[in-house]
């Protein structure tokens, strides 16, 4: 108390922003040393006698700690800077510069433009890179991303519309893939060998129906569960199916998987070098790129069907019931909605699209094994749905392109070898960066990229609903 009246007492000056930033950065650097220290500074490897030895990497840990220090220092300075009075956010200010009519044109013209781009993509790549280079770009980027877009749109029906958190979606993907692989390699050659070229087109609906059946089968026991518990039980189901596929070798050939799965034909015309093959029939020079382009268009159509069906379903009574269920299950039951049927249809339809995607995956790879259907795949698909802003088809597509395309791009960054040395392989950081991106996007935008909602039923005018009023994830 005396110090307040003492004229000689000087209150310590508040630390300057730079001093405070330096202190925070030092703290962060010490934490980083503790967190990364043990695993980065020391590495256990086998020596010549195959015994475990410890190597040191003090240089690496020094670099990491210095980077954390610098990063935290700049971040603290950035947050401590003098701010002008709070105006509208930068995005809103930029948008204000563009006249409303132009914005409307962009908004309404974007989906058709994206569709056109989707359809001309293979031609564009072909003309840019030529036949052999195009294969990689169409397969790794086009088809790979579109499979995830389709899976995410299928899962979106379960998670985004019905609000049922499913961490075992990959099970239905596996059911579809194994249904096609087993029917095409075992059943059809034994019964109707003449149908061999049509195998894909016959099995596609069968795979979808089987997956839907499994969706109901696995959905039935979990009807009473909600939220996190539902997620964990579906995770358990997904893992059980994978473990059975590994261990029941008589059925699925275990770890070895199923190979020589017949590839899809162009509606009965196979893609091979023979006289009746696709190239010969249409008078083209034989090239493997035609099959890839055909597969690309197949998955584009499958994905668009998924989007179209889920958009139409939203406007049907069952779709409205799903969204009502997501918002409030008790209110739904009080209003006489049959929650059992509503949940089971969501599981079945979501699973059906997973089955379609699975049989397409088997046809594209020509080889499947349980390794392709791990929990990680489910997590990636769910992450895409949530990052896209559950329920939004556009946001989900953006998230799939960003996450899958972004990690695929890492395979292409060979120039990084020039900086980090020959042993540096960017592809091995793929999942690490994927996980970091998941956390970062959640922290930055917990509602995902597109968080507003377009209601299908409205009173006077159709208006986007802000994410603050959307309550999904409780069901």
């Amino acid at each position: 108390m005396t110090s307040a009246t003492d004229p000689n007492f000087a209150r310590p000056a508040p630390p300057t922003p730079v001093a405070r930033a330096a202190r925070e950065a030092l703290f962060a650097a010490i934490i980083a040393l503790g967190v990364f220290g043990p695993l980065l500074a020391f590495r256990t490897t086998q020596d010549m006698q195959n015994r475990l030895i410890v190597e040191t990497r003090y240089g690496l840990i020094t670099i990491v700690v210095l980077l954390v220090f610098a990063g935290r220092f700049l971040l603290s300075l950035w947050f401590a800077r003098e701010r002008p009075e709070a105006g509208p956010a930068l995005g809103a200010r930029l948008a204000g510069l563009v006249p409303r009519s132009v914005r409307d044109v962009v908004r309404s013209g974007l989906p058709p433009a994206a569709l056109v781009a989707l359809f001309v993509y293979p031609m564009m790549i072909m003309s840019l890179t030529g036949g052999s280079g195009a294969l990689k770009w169409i397969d790794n980027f086009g088809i790979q991303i579109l499979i995830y877009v389709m899976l995410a749109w299928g899962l979106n029906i379960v998670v985004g519309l019905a609000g049922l958190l499913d961490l075992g979606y990959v099970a239905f993907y596996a059911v579809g893939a194994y249904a096609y692989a087993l029917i095409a390699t075992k059943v059809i050659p034994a019964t109707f060998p003449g149908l061999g070229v049509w195998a894909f087109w016959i099995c596609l609906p069968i795979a979808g129906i089987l997956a839907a059946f499994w969706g109901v089968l696995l959905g039935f026991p979990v009807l009473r569960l909600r939220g996190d518990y539902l997620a964990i039980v579906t995770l358990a189901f997904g893992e059980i199916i994978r473990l059975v596929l590994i261990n029941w070798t008589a059925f699925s050939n275990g770890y070895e998987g199923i190979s020589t799965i017949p590839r899809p034909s162009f509606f009965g015309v196979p893609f091979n070098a023979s006289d009746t093959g696709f190239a010969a029939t249409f008078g083209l020079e034989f090239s493997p790129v035609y099959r890839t382009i055909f597969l690309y268009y197949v998955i584009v159509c499958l994905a668009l069907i998924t989007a179209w069906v889920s958009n139409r379903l939203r406007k049907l009574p069952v779709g409205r019931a799903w969204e009502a269920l997501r918002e409030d299950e008790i209110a739904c039951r009080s209003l006489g909605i049959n929650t059992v049927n509503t949940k089971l249809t969501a599981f079945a339809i979501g699973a059906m699209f997973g089955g379609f995607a699975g049989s397409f995956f088997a046809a594209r790879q020509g080889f499947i094994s349980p390794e392709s259907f791990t929990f990680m795949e489910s997590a990636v698909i769910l992450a895409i749905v949530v990052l896209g802003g559950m329920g939004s088809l556009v946001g989900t597509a953006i998230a799939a392109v960003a996450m899958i395309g972004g990690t695929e791009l890492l395979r292409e960054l060979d120039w990084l070898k020039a900086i980090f040395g020959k042993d540096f392989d960017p592809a091995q950081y793929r999942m690490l960066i994927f996980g970091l991106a998941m956390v970062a996007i959640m922290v930055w935008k917990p509602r995902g990229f597109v968080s507003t909602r377009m209601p299908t039923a409205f009173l006077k005018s159709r208006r986007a609903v802000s994410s603050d009023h959307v309550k999904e994830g409780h069901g």
Partner: protein
Amino acid sequence: MEVFFQQLINGVTLGSIYGLIAIGYTMVFGIIGMVNFSHGDVFMVSTFIALIALMILTTWLGVGSILIALLIVLIVAMIFTSLVSWTIERVAYRPLRGSFRLAPLISAIGMSIVLSNFVQVSQGPRNKAIDPILNNVFVLSAAGGYQVTLSYKQILIVVVTAALLAIFWWVVAKTPLGRAQRACEQDRKMAALLGVDVDRTISITFVMGAALAAVAGTLYLVYYGVVNFHDGFTPGVKAFTAAVLGGIGSLPGAVLGGLLIGLIEVFWSAYFSVEYKDVAAFSILAIVLIFMPQGILGRPDVEKV
């Protein structure tokens, strides 16, 4: 009968490890209602920290007595793993508190991917095997040509688990810190109004869970002698099963659940099939969650409108 006793010993050992991990799940779920998906990978990270500490102590510093070495390893692993878990909570979960319910779960799944891939990149994807330690055994009975044995490391595991659980129980039941934790568990807002530092209490909960996971990690390394970067997922799910089976939110329940899961896994492997032991664990998880989601010692969850 001899086989039964041997499996009983093995099951209790394995169950102790699961129980230690399960406490981390059950405490975090109790206090913030979140399934801490990355906890299994925190456990895996702790096995690697323990491995590196053990290698440094035995090969560089030449610590002769294995027990002293293990004690130091245990403390080092607990400190560093706690720090990792504290950082994860600070960076990935705290900003999402009060956000909608899926956000922390997705963030935790992301963290789990980050941890396992970070270890894979920094330590390499191969199995790391150490020379077996504490392998001497007591032969309890040798009737009928089948030896029932109790190894030193099994004794160590059960003793360490029991000692740490006692300390831990004392902290939660008798100290101001434990009282703050129980207060936060019951009503976070009310606890904050009464002067409990909620953020700090939650941080400490994560740290305690991670410290026990580090004990489990060290014991896992001693017991199996092999660690790998993807060994976090399956023990994590089994420990979560244990937490749910015992009644999530209940500490004695987590230990009881851990012991039960360990016993079920060991007996299933011994009497039915080793291949399907994980299927058995996952099936129990599904069955328990569907038919008795409140677990053995948990309180029933009342649905409020």
